[in-house]
Structures are given as structure tokens and as C-alpha cells.
């Protein structure tokens, strides 16, 4: 439950606040005192006009009194409205404030907790101490400040803000260290892969003498895989932020069938080792798209085909490419574990594992489909999945705008 707060996905409310109820009670008491005036006037009128009956005076006072009470009645509800609708929310990331200057002027502000410099609380006055409310002043790093007035238990709120601020700071630090580690590891791995690629290249090109055809074939495949690995690591090294999401594209027109065929050929031995049939169905017509063929091949097609193989225990994986008037569609069908309706919405999200996906594929990082979606979207295309549920297999589709080569 977000308690009415405008939240981002995954954000949670730590404190939902409004002014202390006693501040509204003060107004009600004030209005009650003002509302007593007409009765006082009525009493004085009766006392002073005892015996005399002057209907016009009496009814004019009655009329004015009721107008006065009407005004106070509406004003009470006006202030009740403002009291109820003015809110502050401390979430695990932000301070969200909802202010009402009148009935229709609603202002929602959002402040990042990471920008807080320090927080001060104050509770001055007998009533503040008695009812336990006070003010919280939040001072930001740029020396601007924001004050939350008449907040119940300000110390508790301050503690929540400080705790959230500290947690965000720690998370930033952890993310920075993780990024550094990732880059270091990627750098080291790239070195090993590059050396492997050099050795394999020498073997394939015959620098160590003639080798048998089967061995040459294996070495050739190993070289292709190693080069792809080097490319992946180079991609990670070339990015600053989220390595998986970042996409550098070198676009040119190319035939998607060729890239898909290359992946199918590369993955076929892996599928066969697992006892699966990997089939490729291609459109006889050219399937030309504009894009980065290496990125499309390695981050999208390879991902989908490897996933299909990893999540299929028996049966087959079918990969196809076809072209229509406006788009080229590549699909990967498998007879594997399928996708439950619960897992479907988080399939293409960052780190989005299926509920039991790691039982089937322990190497799953949860970033493959997310990265694939980034690449497809960068090509102006769409990626989606269909499945009738667990145990029924899955179908993945990628549609990219076609280039008319007629």
C-alpha cells in the first residue's frame, strides 16, 4: 500500500505524514468561539429588549447570525480539506511533498534524499511538547532548505530520513565498487580471451603445422566463440554506466538471415549434445534490416537461441526469419519449461528471473533478455514472448523495421 503517495516502481514509503491533528483542532476551537458570538448577541438582544418586541431587529440579527455560522461552517470544512490533503512522504529514495494553497492549487514536489546535507528538528512551546509535534528543517547540499511544520513525532521522522539517506549513500558506494570490479574483471577476462584468440588463430592458420580437418573445425568454432567473447567484453569496457543496457550501434543494411543462420550453426553442436533438435526455417526472400549486425547477432539472436536451448530439456528448438512488407520477424520456438503468467511481466526487466529459472539454468544472470530488449528498441523494433504457461514451451519474437531493397 503506498498510502496515496505518487511513487516510482519499486519505491516504498517509510513515513506518511500530515500535520498533527491538534493543529486542526486549534482552528475548530477558534471557529467554535467565533460561532458563539451570535448566541451572545442573541442573549444580549433579549436582555436589552426585554418586554419590547421588535421583529425587524430580532430577525435581522437572526439572519446575520446564520450567515455568520454558514461562513464558519464552510471555513471549517475548507481547513479540514487543506489539513487532510497536505501530505509528506518519506520514501526509501525521496521526500515527496503535497501542498495545497487553496482548494485547487495542488503542488507535488519531490526531493532526492541523496542531496540532503543535514536535518534539524525543533519542538518549541508548551503545546508542542505536550502533544509531541514540531518542525523538521531539511538542509540540502546547495544550502537551500525545506521545512515540514507541525509534524507529529519529528524525531522519529528525522531518524527515518537519516536512515534512508545513509542507505542510499551505501547503495551508491556499493554500485560504484561493483562497477569498478566489473570493469577490472572484464579487463582481465579480455586479456585471457585475446591470448586464446591469438593461439587459436595461429592453430587455424597453420602456424603450428597441418592439423586434421575435424580439429581445424573445432578450433575454428572455438576461435569464433572467443572472438565473440572478446567483443562482448569490449562492449562492457566501452560503457560507463549500466554495461548491459548500454548500446553502441554501428548501423548498416544487412540480411538478418545470414546472422541468424550463423548463430544456429554455432549453437547446433550444443543443442545436439543435449539431445535437442535445432532447426532453422528461413524466408527465401532477403530479410534486410538497418542495424548493427554484430550487436543484433550476439546480444539478441544468440541470447534467444541460447535461452531456448538452456530452458528446453527435451524436444526441439526452431528458429526462423521471415519478411513482411514493413518488418522482418525473427522467432525462436522451443518445447521447454515455458513461462508462467506471473513471470511474463518481468521477463525483459533488469535482473528479471523467472520464479524457478535458476533451477533450470543456474548460469542465468537475468540480464540477457533485458539487454536484448535494449538492442531491439535501439533498432526501432519490438521484442515479445508468448507462452501458454509452465511446461508448454515458449515463443519469442523480434520484429525490426524492414529496409526495402527493391
Amino acid at each position: 500500500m503506498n498510502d496515496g503517495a505518487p511513487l516510482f516502481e519499486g519505491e516504498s514509503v517509510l513515513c506518511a505524514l500530515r500535520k498533527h491533528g491538534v493543529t486542526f483542532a486549534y482552528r475548530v476551537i477558534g471557529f467554535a468561539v467565533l460561532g458563539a458570538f451570535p448566541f451572545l448577541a442573541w442573549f444580549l438582544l433579549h436582555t436589552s429588549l426585554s418586554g419590547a418586541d421588535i421583529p425587524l431587529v430580532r430577525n435581522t440579527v437572526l439572519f446575520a447570525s446564520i450567515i455568520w455560522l454558514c461562513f464558519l461552517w464552510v471555513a471549517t470544512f475548507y481547513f479540514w480539506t487543506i489539513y487532510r490533503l497536505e501530505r509528506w512522504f518519506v520514501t526509501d529514495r525521496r521526500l515527496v511533498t503535497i501542498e495545497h494553497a487553496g482548494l485547487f492549487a495542488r503542488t507535488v514536489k519531490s526531493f532526492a534524499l541523496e542531496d540532503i546535507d543535514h536535518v534539524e528538528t525543533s519542538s518549541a512551546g508548551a503545546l508542542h511538547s505536550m502533544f509531541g509535534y514540531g518542525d523538521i528543517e531539511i538542509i540540502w547540499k546547495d544550502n537551500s532548505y525545506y521545512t515540514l511544520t507541525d509534524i507529529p513525532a519529528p524525531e522519529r521522522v528525522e531518524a527515518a530520513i537519516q536512515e534512508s539517506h545513509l542507505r542510499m549513500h551505501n547503495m551508491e558506494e556499493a554500485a560504484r565498487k561493483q562497477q569498478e570490479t566489473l570493469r577490472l574483471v572484464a579487463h582481465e577476462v579480455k586479456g585471457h580471451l585475446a591470448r586464446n584468440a591469438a593461439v587459436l588463430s595461429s592453430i587455424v592458420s597453420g602456424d603450428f603445422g597441418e592439423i586434421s580437418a575435424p580439429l581445424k573445425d573445432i578450433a575454428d568454432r572455438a576461435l569464433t566463440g572467443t572472438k565473440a567473447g572478446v567483443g562482448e567484453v569490449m562492449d562492457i569496457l566501452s560503457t560507463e554506466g549500466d554495461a548491459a543496457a548500454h548500446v553502441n550501434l554501428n548501423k548498416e543494411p544487412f540480411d538478418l538471415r545470414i546472422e541468424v543462420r550463423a548463430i544456429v550453426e554455432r549453437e547446433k553442436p550444443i543443442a545436439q549434445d543435449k539431445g535437442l533438435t535445432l532447426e532453422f526455417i528461413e524466408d527465401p526472400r532477403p530479410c534486410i534490416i538497418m542495424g548493427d549486425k554484430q550487436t543484433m547477432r550476439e546480444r539478441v539472436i544468440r541470447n534467444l537461441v541460447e535461452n531456448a536451448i538452456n530452458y528446453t530439456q527435451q524436444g526441439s528448438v526452431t528458429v526462423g526469419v521471415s519478411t513482411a512488407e514493413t518488418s522482418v520477424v525473427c522467432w525462436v520456438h522451443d518445447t521447454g519449461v515455458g513461462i508462467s503468467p506471473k513471470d511474463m511481466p518481468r521477463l525483459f526487466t533488469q535482473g528479471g528471473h523467472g520464479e524457478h529459472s535458476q533451477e533450470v539454468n543456474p548460469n542465468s544472470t537475468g540480464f540477457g533478455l533485458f539487454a536484448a530488449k535494449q538492442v531491439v528498441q535501439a533498432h526501432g523494433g519490438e521484442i515479445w514472448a508468448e507462452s501458454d504457461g509452465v511446461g508448454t514451451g515458449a515463443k519469442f519474437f523480434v520484429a525490426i523495421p524492414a529496409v526495402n531493397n527493391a
Partner: protein
Amino acid sequence: MWHNGDMHIVVSPLLLVTIGQYVAFAVMFCFAIGGIIFASQWFRHDDNSALSFGMLTIYTLGCVVLAAKLFTAASFLTI
């Protein structure tokens, strides 16, 4: 002829709607508009519909009582 207690008020048709009654109608109108505005704000932005409904009921009951009394007073002013 309207009767109020032991006082008899003769109202001319031309004076039937007086300034007092105009004011009474205006106040009632404000009450009604106010109710709509309050309700729209509460039900749209507040997270407690039951409380909003309760407040609207209290507001309306108060308005009915005050409006009824106001009309009585306004009628007296037609003298």
C-alpha cells in the same frame, strides 16, 4: 398570509422574493457548490474514502439545518 407564532405577516406578491431570500438562495448555492468541491477533492486526493463520505454527510446535514433556518429568517425580512 404566513403564520409564525403569534405574528401574522402579509406578503405582497411583488415582495415575495426579497433581498434576504436572494441572499438565502446564494448561500444555499454556495453550500451546494462547496459540497461538490470538497467531495471532489476528498474523493480524488484523500486515501480514506470512508472518512471523506462521513465528512460529506456531516457537512450536508449542517448545511440543511443552516439553510432551513436561513430561509425562515429570510422570510421574516419580507415584512
